[in-house]
């Protein structure tokens, strides 16, 4: 295993060769924002919040999907990045019906936390107010498409860790939706094992355990990484 050294926000940092910029930064105490990334799942570089600047190139890099390189100079926060992140969040809030005040995930929502962190106090774009459905046909869980940000954490958790591949994405562009099986009600799914990993992975209130109160919406995201470590590295400590 080779060790690389790089600079993150002016701080000299060492990282394992296979680490991504996001992991290396976090070990050095720099928390790069991200919504689609979660420990234990393959990064997809979809939310674009983790974009960072790299010295010597004008192109922004997705920190979750870019491996560290020797001598890299990374800037994780700048006025430009801050503005872009804020705009991404505004686009997300305008895209579907995110109304924190009536959301069961209020105060336990990564989208909400991210908006607070970036000082996003209003949305400069037109709200689309799409008509979206809620599927509570499953006996324990439910999905509210109004709150989905299409991070595909559920899809990856179900495919990579549970191995059931109940979740997938249908349609494209704004018409994209996460679906269960062949776009049938979740309750009719033959493949769902009701393991609840998607519930733990979901960053917003989109996938939830039915009957949970606002106070009970705390999720255990570290469970995904724990399972991966236990299986692949035989590490059983948290």
């Amino acid at each position: 295993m080779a060790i690389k050294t790089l600079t993150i926000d002016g701080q000299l940092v060492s990282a394992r060769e296979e680490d991504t910029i996001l992991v290396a930064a976090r070990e050095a105490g720099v928390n790069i924002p991200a919504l689609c990334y979660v420990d234990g799942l393959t990064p997809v570089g979809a939310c674009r919040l983790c974009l960072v600047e790299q010295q010597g190139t004008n192109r922004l890099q997705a920190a979750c999907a870019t491996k560290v390189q020797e001598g890299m100079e990374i800037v994780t926060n700048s006025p430009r990045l801050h503005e872009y992140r804020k705009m991404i969040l505004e686009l997300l809030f305008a895209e579907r019906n995110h109304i924190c005040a009536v959301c069961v995930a209020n105060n336990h929502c990564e989208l909400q936390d991210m908006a607070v962190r970036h000082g996003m106090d209003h949305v400069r774009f037109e709200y689309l107010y799409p008509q979206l459905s809620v599927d509570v046909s499953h006996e324990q869980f439910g999905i509210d498409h109004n709150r989905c940000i299409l991070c595909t954490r559920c899809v990856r958790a179900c495919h990579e860790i549970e191995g059931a591949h109940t979740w997938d994405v249908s349609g494209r562009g704004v018409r994209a939706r996460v679906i269960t099986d062949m776009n049938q009600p979740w309750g009719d799914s033959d493949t769902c094992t009701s393991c609840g990993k998607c519930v733990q992975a979901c960053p917003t209130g989109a996938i939830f355990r039915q009957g949970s109160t606002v106070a009970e919406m705390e999720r255990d995201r570290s469970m995904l990484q724990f399972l991966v470590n236990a299986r692949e590295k035989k590490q059983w400590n948290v």
Partner: protein
Amino acid sequence: MDRHELHELGDKERRSRPRLRIRCCTAAGCLSANSQAVLDKLKHAVAAQGLEDEVEVCGVGCLRLCCEGPLVQVDPQEVLYQKVSPEHATPIVGALLGGSAGVTQGDPKSPFFALQSSVVLDNCGFVEPERIESYIAADGYQALAHALHEMEPGEVIDEITRSGLRGRGGAGYPTGVKWSMVAKHAAARKYIVCNADEGDPGAFMNRSVLESDPHKVLEGMAIAGYAVGASHGYIYVRGEYPLAIERLKIGIKQANKMGLLGSRICSLPFDFTIDIRIGAGAFVCGEETALMASIMGERGTPKPRPPFPAETGLWGYPTLVNNVETFANVPGIIRRGAAWFAGIGTEKSKGTKVFCLTGKVKNTGLVEVPLGTSLRHIVEDIGGGCPDGKVKAVQTGGPSGGCIPEDLLDTPVDYESLTALGSIMGSGGMIVMDDKNDMVDVARFFMNFCMDESCGKCIPCRAGTVQLSRLLTKIIDGRALNEDLKRLEALCGMVKETSLCGLGQTAPNPVLSTLRFFRHEYVSRIKPPTNGRPKPKVPAASADDGVYTPF
């Protein structure tokens, strides 16, 4: 089949041709104008006159001047008939014996034809796409045989590098460098992929090449396979091109039968098989990582690069992805040499480029010119200019490109010059617009295209294009304020810099380039600021404070 047999077959095919040849276009454009019936009637008419031994009637690929189709050309008299209908068949055959057919004739020596040069399209309109013998008679598969017999794989790559060929899909990456990257990766398996998922509005270059001369692309792929050490190739064709798919299937079958594809090609220990994969109608599958995902049976969405396909491609193996036109250039370079190819074009952009000239222009159709030719030459001399009115702008590069205004038409068409103007070469769509075209509406058309075609994976492209389209609509409807214009520009910059793949990164280009050259069309529609809105009436503070009354 060895080279000797290849030569013999070509000679036999050439000798068997009668003196007179009637070529009828059977590419998609003319077929949609009923050219199949014209071809059948021509054959009947020749038979009825008892001329089968003297006249050959053949269905060929695109004869280029699509707007005048169905086209029929008679050799060696060089007579071009336009807008031919089945009833014209008998008079056309009658005219072979002297006299006039009384059918609209075009001039094969007119600027539209005379000013073009043919490298990629040299067989197009001459060979019969569904007969491999016809391609072999035009020196087909000679380049493959030459490469296999006389060149080391490294020499083939050197030849391509020295030719200066660059990717014809739009980005213009040096082809030789790409090939050598794939060649240098040591792997148990490698793949060649031909990107034929042409989806830009107004572009049909790749379709025409595949429908007119499919073997040239197959030969180019086989040479690439030999050069980089791959033994399997895929052609990813969009499902909207059924004729191209059909002709490729026939072509692959014929080449396999003749030992020009498959195992032990040219009786040498080199194997190369080609399979067709049919796209299901997603524009984003033209992006190479999405294309590979689609070939592997996954959802066609792009992935972050690096790793590049040359390192980790199909099923994790090194994969070479090139466009149809890039592969179609390869046999010519091997056969005629890198120096010949490098002699065409400009210093940094070598060779020719096929364009699809469409829109408000007299001659619409397929055009091939050396790189570095000015846009004005293409639009006004070859295209014949606007039929009514003045050229206002030329749109190049489809939804990823931009609009170049009339006063900059002297710009040479090469990768760097077009990029400097905020457009791109793209795959070769060229849409001419006149003063009746509203540039904001044009920008919105392309934005709506990108919005519909966004895969939905990354947020800037999925949600940003929707907002951009709404802002453009607001401007067109005259509801926009100055802040909306600023917001439009800011959002364009953000979508460009933060999107995951080329689709999103270039989606704002049509807006940015029309803002750059036709800003007045945006500004003139902006609603003037009202001088502050009327102040709401605030009720006078009442004596009983402490009771909060909001209104």
